[in-house]
């Protein structure tokens, strides 16, 4: 394999990794604060991609407005599911929330296929030529995608580490009982958490829909790679989630050159096994052997 192809795969991996960092961050925050791996994350992304496409049809073309509408829609669904399902289950075992999240995943995806069918769709964006630097190809669309993802990540990290809301979130992630004892109202933090989680999944799904095609399985198929990336970075650690998923995506894109794209999920599975075998706490996480 020549160097240029590898470099292009790395660039592609960075773009996909930055984009997947948004839902990966949602996974890790939900895991750290609501304490379960949310299997509906992928399908919230799918919802984001479809609502972007649908609102583009309704609103007439403006891609920015469509993406914002999609983020609002996924945040609303995410909040709805919190109030209906996950709030009621918050005192019960994490397994119950995990099983319920599978139910949410199926309910969301089947609602989409009921209205949109199994066909592929594309989100309408202006076609642009890639810039070519002696073989290195960079798509301007990819730059917009990375820009949007970076902005969103900056906002959430700013909130997490520099505002009172963020401090409360981190307190609850550390110890829910201690946080409650210090008078932190969990309810508000949860509302904020699920809004962010929904909006980020929506944005990630919309950006992926712009980069690739919109399919009913779009998000579900990424669930494994995202979990693998999050665990690689250290589950529960926000910075780890971003680092982990970007590292993972680069590895995946480069490896696809050698084994073919069909093996992406298989590769994700093996990376996951190796991480769990050698370093279950991931790059930045704390060991959580027996939760």
């Amino acid at each position: 394999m020549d160097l240029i192809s590898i470099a292009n795969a790395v660039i592609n991996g960075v773009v996909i990794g930055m984009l997947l960092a948004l839902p990966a961050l949602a996974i890790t925050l939900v895991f750290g604060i609501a304490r379960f791996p949310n299997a509906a994350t992928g399908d919230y992304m799918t919802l984001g991609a479809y609502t972007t496409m649908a609102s583009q049809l309704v609103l007439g073309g403006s891609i920015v407005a469509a993406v914002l509408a999609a983020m609002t829609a996924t945040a609303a669904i995410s909040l709805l599911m919190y109030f209906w399902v996950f709030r009621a289950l918050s005192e019960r075992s994490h397994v119950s929330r995990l099983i319920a999240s599978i139910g949410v995943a199926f309910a969301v995806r089947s609602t989409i296929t009921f209205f949109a069918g199994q066909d592929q769709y594309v989100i309408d964006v202006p076609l642009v030529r890639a810039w070519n630097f002696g073989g290195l190809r960079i798509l301007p669309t990819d730059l917009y995608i990375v820009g949007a993802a970076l902005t969103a990540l900056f906002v959430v990290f700013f909130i997490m580490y520099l505002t009172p809301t963020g401090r409360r979130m981190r307190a609850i992630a550390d110890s829910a009982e201690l946080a409650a004892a210090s008078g932190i109202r969990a309810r508000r933090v949860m509302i904020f958490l699920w809004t962010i989680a929904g909006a980020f999944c929506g944005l990630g799904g919309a950006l992926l829909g712009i980069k690739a095609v919109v399919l009913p399985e779009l998000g579900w198929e990424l669930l494994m790679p995202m979990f693998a990336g999050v665990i690689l970075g250290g589950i529960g650690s926000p910075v780890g989630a971003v680092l982990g998923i970007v590292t993972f995506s680069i590895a995946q894109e480069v490896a696809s050159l050698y084994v073919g794209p069909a093996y992406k999920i298989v590769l994700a599975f093996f990376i996951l096994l190796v991480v769990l075998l050698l370093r279950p706490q991931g790059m930045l996480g704390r060991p959580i052997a027996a939760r």
Partner: protein
Amino acid sequence: MEGYFIAIAISVLVYLLMASGLALQYGFTGLVNFGHVGFFAIGSYASALLALKGVPVPVSLAAAALLAALAAYPIGIIALRLGGDYLAIVTLGFSEAVRMTLQTEEWLTRGMHGLPGIPRLFAGWVEPRYIDLCILLLLVVVCVAVFFAIHQIIKSPFGRVIEAIRDNEVAVRALGKNPAQFKTRSLMIGAGIAGLAGGLQAHYLTFISPEQYVPLITFYIWIAIVLGGVGSLRGVVMGTVLLVGFLEGSRFLRDIFTGISEVQLASVRIWIIGMALICVVLYRPQGLFGKSAERKH
């Protein structure tokens, strides 16, 4: 009409076999296996491929169960040292990895074209028109044997340990037992049962292809045991009958709602499964027939 009932009964029994494996893992040991269909797929393909190579069907079925159980071993070793959530993620990844491999390795599995011409059970032993009935009887025998075996396992010292792990892992560890070892064994037995179910189904259908092994099947089994009541064998039977009743019954929905397409009907079906998972967990955690209160972790 008779044939239709036999087909449905076979379908119930295959699901029941799978469900009993998951009941041992989740209901009695507390293991969250989200990749049950992966072990089922391994059993199907292993038995089918061996039989196509000329291996006698009883031997290929045994090999299918054994291979599926062995596939669970590394997963158990790696994931079960860690918390329960990891097992859920790893098994889900496992079943998808199996499906993708079956789809891609065409030299072995013919990929998406599927494997046709798998030898039928009892072919050449009984008259063709009685074959389905014989398969049904065989499945009844296998199910009864598996249920009896699980019952014996639960009553044995091993069974008391796995139930204790489900209820309080720390206490088990304090007694000097290694929970991971017991959990791995439970995972392997359950996977072996799923493999056997897969093999039996392959020799009944005579055609298999990777798209029969989507994660949805795993969650069909989950809804069956959650609906029936976790930790009760009677609940597993009731849950499975309800599940297959729903899956078969929903085919006739199109006769009532005429304006609905095939894709939409499939969506409605999955929507109901998803909603049922949510609602049972929310409103009836002990299942329709279960007795035990929800345990806390």
